[in-house]
């Protein structure tokens, strides 16, 4: 009997051993591994229904892990349920509702609109509502051109990029500024046409400040009916901002000293009281944390001497104090 190491390799480990022994080139090994594929770890390309469900669960867990946004999460859960039931109804031959899932996101900057849009795209990709689920973020300047005909061309190009995924128009109400002569109107018309021509091939999300969006939709009644889903993004509360701060610090492998934690909590409260507009903006958190990280570096180097792992990780209140 031949020793087992001489047998043709029939599993990934043996294929790799043969490469090490010089009996296969990397290219040959990859070819063999490909043919062994059925016995290797599950692939992502071939989706069985349970896997689609798991993928959706996975994205949902990410959505659920977002800090705050309770109502947004509830509504997304509802949309998910709707899509799922329509799919199952279709599978047993029942009539299904047409799925118009275009959305309006109302909220101030830094309230999580883009983040949620990206996750919604991925959720819909997992549920196979959208083929790709990528996010194309645009604003007025990406859609509106400078001469007649230019706008339609620009807008169509953006739609083409968004095919299979999500087109996210930030500050969408700015398309309506400038009155009748403005090309913004042409961009809106082109978008509406694209929504008709490419039903369920892409998802359109219009986003902006609540009050401006309300006025925008009131002025364009044709739009209103095409966006059945409206999600509200409230400003973050001081305690939510604190949770976001801690999450961000943790992800960067830092930690907050006890004092820093207490003072930061007070800081977010104070901000809310004295400067309510823009106080709930999570982007402030990132700036704050990044500046504190730089301050900490200067502080440590200035102090000199030996630095423990603890020292290197800890952000103290003075790091934040000067950086506000």
């Amino acid at each position, binding site marked *: 009997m031949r020793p087992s190491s001489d047998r043709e390799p029939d599993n*990934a480990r043996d*294929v*790799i*051993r043969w*490469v*090490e*022994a*010089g009996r296969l*080139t*990397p*290219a040959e*090994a*990859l*070819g063999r*591994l*490909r043919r062994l*594929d059925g016995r*290797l*770890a599950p*692939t*992502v*390309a*071939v989706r069985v229904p349970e896997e689609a469900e798991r993928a959706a669960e*996975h994205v949902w867990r*990410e959505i659920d892990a*977002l*800090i705050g946004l309770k109502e947004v999460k509830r509504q997304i859960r509802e949309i998910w349920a709707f899509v799922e039931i329509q799919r199952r109804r279709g599978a047993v031959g029942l009539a299904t509702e047409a799925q118009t899932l275009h959305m309006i996101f109302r909220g101030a900057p*830094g309230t*999580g609109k*883009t*983040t949620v849009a*990206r*996750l919604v795209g991925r959720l819909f990709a997992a549920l196979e509502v959208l083929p790709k689920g*990528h*996010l194309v973020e645009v604003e007025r300047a990406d859609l509106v051109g400078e001469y007649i005909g230019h706008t339609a061309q620009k807008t169509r190009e953006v739609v083409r990029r968004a095919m299979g995924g999500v087109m996210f128009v930030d500050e969408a109400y700015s398309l309506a500024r400038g009155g009748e002569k403005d090309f913004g109107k042409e961009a809106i018309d082109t978008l509406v046409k694209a929504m008709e021509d490419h039903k369920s091939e892409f998802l359109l999300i219009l986003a902006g400040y609540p009050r401006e969006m309300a006025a925008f939709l009131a002025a364009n009644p044709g739009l209103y009916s095409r966006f059945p889903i409206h999600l509200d993004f409230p400003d973050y509360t001081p305690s939510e901002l604190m949770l*976001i701060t801690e*999450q*961000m610090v943790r*992800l*960067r492998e830092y930690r907050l000293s006890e004092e820093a934690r207490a003072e930061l909590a007070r800081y977010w409260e104070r901000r809310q009281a004295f400067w309510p507009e823009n106080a709930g903006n*999570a*982007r402030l*958190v*990132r700036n704050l944390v990044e500046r504190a990280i730089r301050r900490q570096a200067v502080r440590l180097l200035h102090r000199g001497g030996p630095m423990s792992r603890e020292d290197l990780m800890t952000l103290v209140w003075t790091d934040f104090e000067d950086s506000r």
Partner: protein
Amino acid sequence: LSAEVLVVGRPNAGKSLFVLNFAAFLGQRALRLAAASDGSLARWMPLERARREWVSPLPYTTLEPLAVRVVLGEGDRLLAVHLVDCPAVDDGSSPSDAVRRAWASTLARLVEARAVLHIVDAGVAPGVVDAELEAFVAPRAAYAVIANKCDLPGTGRAVRRLRSQFAPRPVLAVSARTGRGFPDVARFLAEHVRP
């Protein structure tokens, strides 16, 4: 929340320089290096020193996979990604035990990979191993081809050729030296890499 992205390709495609400069582009000033198999060996190294020690014009400078931790994303959705600079794989065989061991370690990682950046030198025709990498990896993992060295003249046509050869996979035109195309890579990873 963290994920692993393998950086693979033939010798001298520019994998190590790509990993270092891309990490710098993402705002890392010092790198946390870990021998990828064992996180406990983590050590910090300033970027400049890593470039000196880690990148060279000689093939097979990288014989041990090295991981660099970077943070992707925005707002309160951040994703820590370990970019793993894998030893090269190449066509043909090698008389060196060390090289063959390095090949084997890269292949073993590829079997488990969930996200792969495949670096090719835009100035050099892809090898058999490049075609095999695509065929094995692309159906199993998030996958993009990075056409590197696009700062060199005449690479525009090469990139178009790569695009048709690797279609429908994404081929991103990049220069690890100048940072060209890094935003596209960041966008690709943000969209396709999951924890």
